């Protein structure tokens, strides 16, 4: 392997001096922001992997429509229905082949599921099935049943997260993913590039892009520069400051929500007046168009407005430093130790301008009368504060974090963030726990109503956290490319959606 790499390097030096960054017409280069460590289909929910393989190499049974409003759409499944006993039956598409030539059938689906839950490998997709047991039963080649305990009303949505691999795939991480998608991996030089090439025997409509090359640059300025210099066609994320050209730089709501998690078990944050005061002390409007992109939305929930059960009546807390001071004084009078120093822990490079945003928030809180420190920490340390069990020896702290829910259902957020057992929850409220349990089991309008109720209750009554912004990302797209980013661009980038302007 060593020898091969050396030869590779030598060859590279020997290649002609013509700039090869000039592009062939229907091939595109996409510059990603994060190293792609593995190309394992069951890890496709990780954004860096998903953007390469999800929908391109590996497909799922269902698919969430992020461009229109059709909701859940069929992909490898043609249709599905819930049975009497609450289990789900899926009818699979016929005439589909994997890139290795084998035919797609129910056995492949079953194997893909078994793989995700196998204890000898750690597949990320498994996390969406926490607290339930799923059994996949093959009925015939084109039909498969899923028996879920407890009954899972959003199983079809969850299936949009499980990629399908051939039944022959070993139960270990693969480096050459095989899938039913319109593209196949033809080259992977770790650290340099990944190349996907269009398949001729794809079951669906043939996409325009013939070949896609993925490269990674961690510096946002470099990513932006590459598209500008014609070295890349799409940079799915560039920084707000680099997004200066309206012709190429497209903002998109990226399903991330920035918030400050308050720990209601610590004095003085355990007092609801203090939590309210914190919310009132922050001038959210001032950030929009300055440190946070113009198109970002002020948040009233921890998931974006496109989510089911969104409650439009919840209002953003008004900026009211005087009111905040008054509330603090009131709390102080009742013996709440409001002068206790509070530390904000935020993660470096969590989102663009995170440091500046946190510095500004620190100052706003100080102006309202809080004693606030700011500590920027790296990801591993951030995790220590973010997830339970919380450290008890670091004083009172607020943690700044960003949460991603692109699935369109609050259940992907609510339990973790607000249930008293939730891993990142700062509150413990029986009514909240009850609402979450009921909403998760409900369907249809009932479900939406319960989620709405939860949103308002958490926001207005409990004041569980300081919701700040639904973030906006910027993609830079070369002029010749016809493509717009969506709320799902953080997790996938389907090459079939890319067209060319003539």
């Amino acid at each position, binding site marked *: 392997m060593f020898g091969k790499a050396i030869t590779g390097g030598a060859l590279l030096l020997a290649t002609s001096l013509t700039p090869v960054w000039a592009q062939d017409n229907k091939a595109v280069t996409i510059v990603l922001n994060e190293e792609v460590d593995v190309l394992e289909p069951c890890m496709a929910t990780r954004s860096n992997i998903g953007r390469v393989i999800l929908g391109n190499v590996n497909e799922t049974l269902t698919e969430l429509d992020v461009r229109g409003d059709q909701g859940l759409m069929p992909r490898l499944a043609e249709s599905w229905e819930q049975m009497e006993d609450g289990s789900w039956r899926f009818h699979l598409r016929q005439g589909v082949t994997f890139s290795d030539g084998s035919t797609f059938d129910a056995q492949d689906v079953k194997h893909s599921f078994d793989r995700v839950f196998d204890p000898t490998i750690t597949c990320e997709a498994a996390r969406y099935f926490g607290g339930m047991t799923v059994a996949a039963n093959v009925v015939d080649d084109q039909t498969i049943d899923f028996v879920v305990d407890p009954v899972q009303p959003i199983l079809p949505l969850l299936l949009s997260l499980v990629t399908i691999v051939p039944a022959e795939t070993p139960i270990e991480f693969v480096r050459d993913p095989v899938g039913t998608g319109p593209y196949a991996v033809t080259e992977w030089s770790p650290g340099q590039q990944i190349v996907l090439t269009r398949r001729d025997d794809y079951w669906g409509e043939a996409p325009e892009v013939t070949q896609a090359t993925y490269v990674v640059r961690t510096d946002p300025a470099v990513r932006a520069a590459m598209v500008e210099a014609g070295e890349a066609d799409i940079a799915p994320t560039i920084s707000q400051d680099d997004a200066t050209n309206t012709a190429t730089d497209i903002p998109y709501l990226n399903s991330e929500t920035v918030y400050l998690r308050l720990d209601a078990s610590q004095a003085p944050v355990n007092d609801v007046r203090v939590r309210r005061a914190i919310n009132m002390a922050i001038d959210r409007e001032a950030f929009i168009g*300055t440190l946070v992109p113009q198109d970002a939305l002020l948040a009233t929930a921890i998931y974006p407005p496109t989510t089911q059960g969104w409650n439009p009546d919840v209002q953003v807390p008004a900026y009211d430093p005087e009111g905040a001071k008054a509330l603090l004084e009131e709390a102080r009078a009742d013996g709440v130790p409001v002068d206790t120093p509070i530390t904000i822990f935020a993660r470096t490079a969590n989102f663009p301008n995170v*440091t500046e945003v946190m510095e500004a928030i620190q100052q706003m809180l100080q102006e309202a009368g809080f004693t606030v420190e700011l*500590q920027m*920490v*790296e990801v591993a340390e951030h995790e220590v504060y973010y997830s339970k069990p919380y450290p008890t020896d670091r004083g009172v702290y607020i943690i700044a974090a960003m949460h991603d829910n692109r699935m369109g259902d609050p259940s992907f957020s609510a339990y973790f963030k607000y249930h008293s057992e939730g891993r990142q929850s700062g509150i413990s409220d029986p009514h909240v726990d009850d609402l979450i349990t009921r909403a998760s089991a409900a369907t249809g309008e009932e479900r939406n109503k319960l989620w709405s109720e939860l949103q308002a209750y958490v926001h207005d009554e409990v004041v569980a956290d300081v919701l700040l912004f639904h973030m906006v990302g910027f993609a830079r797209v070369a002029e010749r490319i016809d493509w717009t980013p969506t709320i799902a661009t953080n997790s996938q980038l389907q090459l079939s959606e890319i067209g060319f302007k003539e």
Partner: protein
Amino acid sequence: MSNVPAMTDGTVLPDEPSAPRRFLRMLWADKFALAATIILLVVVLMAVFGPALLGDVAQKQNLRGRNAPPFDWERGWLWWMGADSLGRPLLARIIVAARNTITVAAGAVLCSALVGTALGLVAGYASRRVGEAIMRLADVIMSFPSLLLAVIVLYILGPSVANVVVVLAITRIPVYLRTTRAEVLEIRERMFVSAARVMGASSRRIVLRHILPVVLPTLMTIATLDFAYVMLAESALSFLGIGIQPPEITWGLMIAQGKEHLTRAWWLSFWPGLAIILTTLSLNLLSNWMRIALDPTQRWRLEMRGRSNG
């Protein structure tokens, strides 16, 4: 055999001016070193008085005046370098950041020089076995990835100015250790050390009174260079996000933060970059000057120039 005539027995010794005057004169002779000294004095003054005078101004945010361009003479002098992404005046921030920058660099250099020199003296003068053990330790420190060290220290102790000093100090210890040891090994064979031993001087006395003063000029030169190196290392740590973190400010951190805005607001990282270059350049120039001024056989170059100029 030198061409320069030496004094013979009968020559009357010329009177030499006092040391400070002499050094001032040599400084005057080298205009580069003079400029460097002035710049460093300014930096030190900024570090000493800056935070007290401008600390509040430098923290005062104005989101609507963010990334204000430089050379806007209409506004106060604090805004001549423009404003950062939170609308804070860059000039004021550079002045205030001087303290942390200098503290980190000086602290790290001082700590590493003290520890490294002490270990180097022991390694050079003690028995072979002790010396070897210390050298192996130096090897381990040398090959310990400094970034890993930074992550470990800052994870366990938390990111603060003092801990960054610790990280940088540890990584620089081998430089002093090895230099000191090498010099000691050479100096201990010199005749004046034998002369001291013949008088019955203890090892401690020989090391501290006879060897250390001879090594010191070399170490001082290294320390000035290292000062520059440590400043750059600190800024690289900040750049990688594992160094000092806001709301503390250092020049390196300002560059790191400003780089996001480089294409649109170049001044955010330009000025602190310039401050670093000017300071390190001054240190380098001063260390070059010191190398000559502290060496009796080279000193005439400066003294000659000083005379012909003044």
